[in-house]
């Protein structure tokens, strides 16, 4: 009985806290969250289930959208494209909106799992830069099913206090001098791409020998690794816990902003340029709200706030025009033509993905064993 009483009391406490605190909002914010075109949103209501990457939206935007449209947003996070794919393929998928990368979108379109976007409901799509739409066209012909949300490159983030040589090649990630100080990226395509590029192969290779060689190299690298992570890498780098890391450009920008000793480079062997686009899966129930949300995040002013917040590069020209000059001049935020010419987009590998997966599975099995 004692235990029951105490438990009930504790629960009551917790409930009270929720009630008291959910209403509070950070009031120190001074950022300008007005609509660029003086947009008005009508009441829509219902729920909107969003599946996105961790730390990939300014949460203030969610609150504003909920207030404007009366839609209750349920926001779920994932850490890899493959995890998102598993969730979207589950027969009882509930999501109305999600933000997968290029090669996944290609696959989703091929398997007829996406809803064609109704552009008449997304007038703000006009803000998206033509140049970006030109690239995304390669995996979503005609940009019918998706609109770019964020983009960037994959590169090496390094600590200039710990690495005194010039960093310009993926090779340095295999340098024993930095044993225990290297972060690899915990994602099939990204990690294998790093190894493929280092060996001079194409990141979209369909040659099993090349993939296996890349896998062998990755296995050789394991003893040198501090870890194999995702979003946690930037924190670790920022706190000087590691010397070198494979990261996405947005994470690099955030870490560099907080730790001046860090630098980011896209290696000379080339790299991957990626796009995370917003799509509506066939499972969507609230199409009205989903389209409204896509339009909402493409508002030039809000997109500017969003990119400032999450540090990733926006494809939204309207937003770019509103950003500080420093962003445009930053090689990590806005890579030059020369850098981009070295980078390629991931493409769906069809059935060949099995070769990648079993290589990955073997790689993971060797860890700690």
């Amino acid at each position, binding site marked *: 009985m004692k235990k029951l009483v105490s438990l009930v009391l504790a629960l009551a406490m917790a409930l009270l806290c929720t009630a008291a605190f959910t209403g509070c909002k950070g009031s120190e914010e001074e950022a300008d969250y007005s609509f660029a075109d003086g947009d008005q949103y009508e009441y829509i209501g219902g729920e909107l289930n969003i599946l996105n990457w961790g730390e990939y939206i300014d949460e203030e935007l969610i609150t504003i959208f909920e207030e404007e449209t009366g839609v209750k947003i349920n926001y779920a996070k994932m850490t*890899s494209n*493959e*995890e998102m*794919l*598993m969730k979207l*393929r*589950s*027969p009882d998928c509930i999501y109305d909106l999600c933000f997968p990368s290029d090669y996944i979108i290609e696959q989703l379109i091929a398997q007829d799992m996406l809803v064609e976007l109704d552009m008449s409901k997304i007038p703000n799509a006009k803000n998206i830069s033509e140049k970006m739409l030109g690239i995304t066209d390669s995996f979503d012909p005609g940009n019918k099913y998706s609109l770019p949300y964020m983009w960037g490159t994959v590169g090496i983030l390094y600590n200039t206090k710990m690495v005194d040589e010039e960093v310009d090649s993926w090779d340095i990630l295999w340098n024993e001098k930095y044993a225990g100080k290297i972060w690899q990226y*915990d994602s*099939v395509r990204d990690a294998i791409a790093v190894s493929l590029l280092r060996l001079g192969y194409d990141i979209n290779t369909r040659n099993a020998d090349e993939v296996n060689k890349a896998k062998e190299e990755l296995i050789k690298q*394991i003893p040198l*690794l*501090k*870890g*194999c*992570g995702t979003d946690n890498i930037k924190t670790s780098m920022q*706190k*000087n*816990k590691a010397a070198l890391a494979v990261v996405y450009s947005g994470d690099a920008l955030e870490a560099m902003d907080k730790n001046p000793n860090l630098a980011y480079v896209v290696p000379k062997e080339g790299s991957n340029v990626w796009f995370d686009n917003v799509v509506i899966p066939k499972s969507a129930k609230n199409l009205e709200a989903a389209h409204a949300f896509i339009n909402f995040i493409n508002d030039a002013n809000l997109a500017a706030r969003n990119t400032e917040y999450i540090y990733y590069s926006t494809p939204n020209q309207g937003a770019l025009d509103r950003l500080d000059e420093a962003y445009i001049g930053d090689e990590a935020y806005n890579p030059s033509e020369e850098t981009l010419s070295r980078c390629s987009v991931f493409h769906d590998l069809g059935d060949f*993905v099995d070769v990648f*997966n079993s290589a990955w*599975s*073997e790689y*993971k*099995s*060797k*860890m*700690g*064993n």
Partner: protein
Amino acid sequence: MKRKVFAYPYIVWMILFIVVPMFFIFYYAVNVGGQFTLTKFWSTLTDVKNNWLVLWNSIVIALKTTAICLIIAYPIAYILSNMKKSVAGFISLLFFVPMWMNFILRTYSWYAILEYFIPGLIGKPEVSFTGTEFSVLLVLVYDFLPFMILPLYNTLSKIDKSLIEASRDLGANPVKTFFRVVLPLSVPGIVSGITMVFVPAITTFTVPFIIGNGVFTLYGSKIDEAFHQATGVVGDYAVGSTLSIILVICVLISTLIMNYFDKDKESGGQVL
């Protein structure tokens, strides 16, 4: 109306949600996208250099965890069982209170301690203690220690003290008394403690993920990966299901071994 009737709702529930779901592991192991196939089942089963290697290593780690837990927990339980009932009750409560805090939170806290706090404390902030077998073992022992203390304490405190006195009166020294009387009588507690630590320790995937920095793969991580990271065709649970079947068989074997050692166990007895 017979009293038996009251159990019928549960029996229906049990069949629907305990028995039937178990069947799906086998169903999905040989069913890919609605087609019957043994290829994935067979390739997973025969993948010795990956799956079985990881399983073997996980068993080794789980054994180490169980052994360390037993070594630490036995003296604790023994000391507690010799204390005054009310004091022992209070102190044993102190040992179980940490379990009320979700173990994910506690593991998360260990990460911060090992990665940032201890290195800062010893003045070497660039060092880190995560990502090693030692750290994974430490946190596994931490997580499962109360599960070892609980059954040991229960058994030890039920041992009739007059047996110990009798042994002493008959001339046995304390050490002999311990090994000839107390230890044999506490076997049921040891057995259920081992089962409660060993099985969860094989299947854990959160500790290697958080503490192991993602460079430490245990069998649970492999299963998690099969369900959450793989890119197969729609509804492809074959790999994960096959790995789970192997796991269930391992658990079954270890339970049988444990039951063999614990002959006093009543049928339909309690785990806790």
